[in-house]
């Protein structure tokens, strides 16, 4: 099945091309192996969903993709992860740049206790992306518009980001990630802390952003995976069990374990 055309996307959809490639990736927490020998390709123009029961390693693997696991002292990663052909764990790769290129949105909205404007401007400021104040303001406005938040906050940019509602906070966090113009956006259960209406808005937003960024979303909600993604990977006990077109995974899984999970035998 082909993804529906993105409404409002300014660029014509191009053919998906390879963005990130993981081969034989394992992650340990101390002596415990959380991700076991996972190989997967992430492509542009697609939303890739990681599904699986909790504790299956999908979030851990996601955090390996922008080296957020580095912040956990006991975590250790093996295998090769490439971004556009560059080894992200290689010495030539700079972790600061990597995280700017591979952005991340977390499970719980985590706006900084600063103004809405400063939240979005934070990334461009630290990376020196704006030449002057006007350009910075343009970037903030553009990011908030892309995140679908502009109309709601344009009159109160100086208010604290923590004063927004949960759904707005999460879109602010997405705007914050977009502001540094990443190539890939990793989303770790971005809607799990939100109510159904806010969730629907986030899903809509993911849909809109698909043409511009390669998006990887971790979700425990299979309907959500089916709704927003084009490709789905099923993880279980740290292993990648099955990876393919979302329609195929949900209608015709090849591996029995995937079928058991999809049909609700466990999870």
């Amino acid at each position, binding site marked *: 099945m082909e993804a529906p055309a993105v409404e409002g996307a300014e660029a014509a959809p191009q053919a998906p091309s390879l963005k990130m490639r993981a081969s034989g990736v394992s992650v340990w927490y101390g002596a415990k192996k959380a991700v076991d020998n996972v190989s997967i390709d992430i492509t542009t123009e697609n939303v890739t969903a990681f599904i699986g029961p909790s504790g299956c390693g999908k979030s851990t693997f996601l955090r390996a993709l922008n080296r957020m696991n580095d912040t956990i002292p006991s975590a250790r990663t093996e295998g090769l992860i490439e971004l556009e052909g560059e080894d992200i764990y290689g010495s030539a790769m700079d972790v*600061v740049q990597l995280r*700017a290129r591979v952005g991340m949105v977390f499970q719980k909205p985590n706006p900084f206790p600063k103004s809405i404007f400063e939240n979005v401007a934070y990334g461009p400021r630290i*990376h020196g992306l704006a030449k002057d104040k006007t350009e910075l303001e343009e970037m903030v406005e553009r990011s908030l*518009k892309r995140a679908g938040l502009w109309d709601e906050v344009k009159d109160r940019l100086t208010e604290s980001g923590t004063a927004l509602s949960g759904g707005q906070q999460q879109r602010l966090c997405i705007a914050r990630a977009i502001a540094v*113009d990443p190539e890939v956006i990793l989303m770790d259960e971005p809607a799990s802390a939100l109510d159904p209406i806010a969730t629907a808005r986030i899903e809509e937003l993911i849909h809109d952003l698909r043409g511009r960024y390669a998006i990887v979303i971790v979700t425990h909600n299979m309907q959500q995976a089916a709704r927003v993604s084009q490709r789905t990977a099923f993880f279980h006990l740290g292993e990648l069990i099955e990876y393919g077109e979302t329609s195929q995974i949900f209608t015709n899984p090849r591996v029995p374990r995937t079928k058991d999970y999809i049909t609700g035998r466990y999870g």
Partner: protein
Amino acid sequence: MDGLTVDPTPTDWGSNDMRKRIARRYRSEKRFRAVGFAAIATSVGFLAFLLITMMSNGLAGFVETRIEVPIDFPKSSLFLDPASLKGDGARAALAAADIEGSVAEAAEARFGPGGANLVSEAAWLRVRDLIAENPALLEGKSIFSLPVSGDFDLAAKGDAPPPVEARYARLKSEGAISRGFNFGFMSGSDATDPAAVGIWGAFKGSLLTMIVTIVLAFPIGVFSALYLEEYAPRNRWTDLIEVSINNLAAVPSIIFGLLGLAVFLNFMHLPRSAPLVGGLTLALMTMPVIVIAGRNAIKSVPPSVRDAALGVGASPVQVVFHHVLPLALPGILTGTIIGMARALGETAPLLMIGMRAFIATPPGGISEPATVLPVQIFLWSDEVSHGFIEKTSAAIIVLLLFLLAMNGLAIYLRNKFERTW
């Protein structure tokens, strides 16, 4: 969707500018980290510097210089019959005899004019004690190894005027000088001659004061903690008690001194300079510390223990005294020891209640004039005589060792009995 017409070109991370910028950011990262390390190194370095200074100044205070003085009692002007030193009259006979004079006389005879100034003002006490032990000494000539005076002691440390140094060198080559551990420092009290001072008097004062403090502060503190944590109803009175305790814990110690002065001395007319009043004052200061530590310890006893005891029909008082208190006791003790360590190092409030007098004998009880170690340090630090520097630092070493021991005990208790529920 995109409201702006201009679509930005993707960031070129490989550009020269960007590379320079990243390098700059990493340099600033390194700098920040180095500043952090420098901050902690400065703090710890200061601690090390302070301790080393005290050590290098103070260790000499534990060493005394002795000089050999031959005293020929039969020939001296001392009139003391050895026979009178047997039986009941011995102390009176010794007290009546002018041993101090004959020691001075012997020193003058041995070292020439001014010789009496070479021996410590407390040297004759040592001679007296030796005679009391062995009256036969009075019948002949014997050589006494006596502590030198503070001024002459400086010569031993190369810190005296050249003529004194020269005299010291001459006597030393004659073999009349020896050095050894200063037992007098551990057993003596305050004196005007730095060579004769000791810390036992101040130490005993500290000990008596701490006993009064703990006898009062511990039960009151523990009972308050139990009441507030286990029984107190939520009302205005309880709030008032809590606010009082939290504020008392932050009141400057000198204010407690003013309280002690106004209430214990001027209102209740308790004896001035006494460990009793010092202990009362410090108890009021330590009590909030014990209450706060006690409440935390009691709070950490899980409710399930109380429920279990209540479930088998124990009364609320039995629950607390049979179950909660024993489980919370290690935590309470840890807090108490830390509070007592703070009280032991406290100076200012004790100055207010007059514990700064010159006290040359150890106190006999809690209502007799006394001083305490930190105040003794303060008094000695004010002395002009150069010999007091090493004695002050030596007293500081003793005080720090005690504090270290107390805190060590607290840490040991915490590690030994700490449990996670």
